[in-house]
């Protein structure tokens, strides 16, 4: 697209690319580098870019002397089931909106999609007493149910865009063959929509895994804490100076989302950006 034949164009392009690349990647490099440094190297006014005497002590400490493994386990359960619940609900809603006609359908869909703009912290004001009344405060189930807040509205819209593109003739043909509605959904529609399902599932998982606000407010029992508040409360306060440990724990806490993302990123980016580009 750009013509980089001239020296000047190459220089401008190269400088901007290097600057933005540095901004994006240096913090990651610094996290990794710090996580392998012994304490004496972490606390130097002019630090060395790479660890001089690399050590895995920060990782050993994070996995054996901290609560991190418990937080990881809690996050895996709550984010995993929260994503599953969100995806199932979004599939039902989106398929209904895309392929069935009934009164109030458009208004209902508009309402659900508009909910993207409801401020999450405001919902908590009522969600908290609601969960309390239902006995779900300080429980994994309560957190899992709350996690639909993050991705149900946008997930419904993403899946709607997938389902609407499945030809209605395919569905009609199956109906003519006597297939039940439920069978049509599970055998025909869902297999055709796997990229969409993966996108919504991972999107919901990322939101839940990365959440701080809800987990911090709805969970106070340390044994149920998830990674977001877990990390924050472990490294705040007096132990706040353990930056090597904080960076190693951060890296471990990031791995599950990074791996999940790496496996399906091609689908994911397509699914996520589909709505924003004029077709």
């Amino acid at each position, binding site marked *: *697209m750009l*013509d980089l034949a001239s020296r000047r164009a190459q220089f401008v392009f190269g400088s901007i690319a290097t600057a933005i690349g540095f*901004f*994006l990647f240096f*913090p*990651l490099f610094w*996290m990794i580098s*710090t996580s392998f440094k012994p304490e004496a190297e972490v*606390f*130097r*006014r*002019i*630090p060395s870019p790479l660890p001089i005497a690399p050590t895995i002590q920060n990782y050993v400490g994070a996995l054996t002397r901290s609560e991190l493994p418990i937080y990881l386990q809690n996050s895996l359960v709550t984010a995993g089931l929260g994503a599953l619940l969100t995806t199932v609900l979004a599939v039902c*809603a989106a398929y209904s909106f*895309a*392929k*069935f*006609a*009934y009164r109030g359908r458009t208004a*209902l869909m508009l*309402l*659900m*999609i508009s909910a*993207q*703009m*409801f*401020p*999450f*912290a*405001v*919902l*908590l*004001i*009522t969600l*908290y007493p609601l969960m309390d009344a239902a006995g779900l405060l300080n429980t994994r189930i309560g957190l899992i*149910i709350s996690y*639909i*807040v993050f991705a*149900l509205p946008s997930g419904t819209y993403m899946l709607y*865009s997938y389902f*609407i593109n499945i030809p209605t003739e395919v569905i009609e043909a199956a*109906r003519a063959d006597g297939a039940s509605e439920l069978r049509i959904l599970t055998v025909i529609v869902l297999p055709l929509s796997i990229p969409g399902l993966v996108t919504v599932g991972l999107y919901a998982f990322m939101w839940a895994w*990365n959440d*701080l*606000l809800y987990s911090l407010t709805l969970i106070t029992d340390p044994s149920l804490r998830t990674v*977001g508040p877990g*990390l*924050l409360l472990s*490294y705040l306060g007096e132990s706040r100076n353990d*930056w090597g440990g904080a*960076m190693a724990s*951060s890296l471990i806490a*990031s791995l599950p989302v990074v791996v999940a993302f790496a496996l399906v*990123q091609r689908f994911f*980016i*397509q699914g996520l*950006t589909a709505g*924003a*580009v*004029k077709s």
Partner: protein
Amino acid sequence: MLPLSARAPQVGGLKRAEARFGIALVALPLAAFTAVILYPFVDALRLSLYRYTLMTPQPVFDGLRNFERLAEDGEIGPIWVNTVVFVVATTAATFVLGLAWAIILNQPFRGRTIIRSASLLPWVLPSTVTAFIWAWILNAQYGVLNAALLVAGLIDEPIAWLATPEGAMSGVVLAKTWLSVPLFSAFFLAGLQALPLEQVEAARIDGATNGQVIRHVVLPHLRTTMVVTLVLGAMGNLQQFDVIYAMTGGGPVRATTVLSLEVRRQAFENWNIGLASAVGVIWFLTIAGPAYIYLRSLFRQG
């Protein structure tokens, strides 16, 4: 984007049983949506008109007193300004960097595929991790930013970035920008890949320079993407709680307290639900503008 009515099934030709299945399908998500999202939202707005605190555990109707209290208190003004500063600065910085990065990644060069994937990493990391990374970089005593500036001779003494109001605000803007550039550039890149190359070639034949190609071909082509990205980005930044809370806790002295932090503080630290709801109403009014633009573009297109 898809208009709601496009390619929707025709009501006339539909059997009753099908419609019933459609309604049955939507029942469960609708129930969950109502209980967990819609009802809490409406109820929170309602409670802004009630006195509802730790001392008054049963809500008592109080008219607009909560809003008057906010006005008398005088804190909501600066918090609103903080919010606007944060949202505008972050959205603008992310927009410019995201667009530039997308144009760069759209050029063919060796290793482009890997860079494209890797540059999404900042967006994937948990928000607490993002906050840790930037708090560490900006650390007063051992932060690498201070080290670099000292070595370069630009400062004589390390600066406690997060301890000053301006420094803390710049810090959270920087962290949130870092976190969002990947998503913005993914959106722009998708838009660029849909750009017909003939248009660029035609402009080249007319003798257009790189700057002219960007201004007259690329940017007009990306118009829709830019609107959607700006509005979605602004809405996301208005929602932002995690990174700011983890990095500064809203400090120093409220300098980085935005509406989301204030709602949580009033509701779950002061246990003044009515006042928290009133802040929520102000927040909702702030978010409603961009949201309206976004939703209108979502439903009018195609």
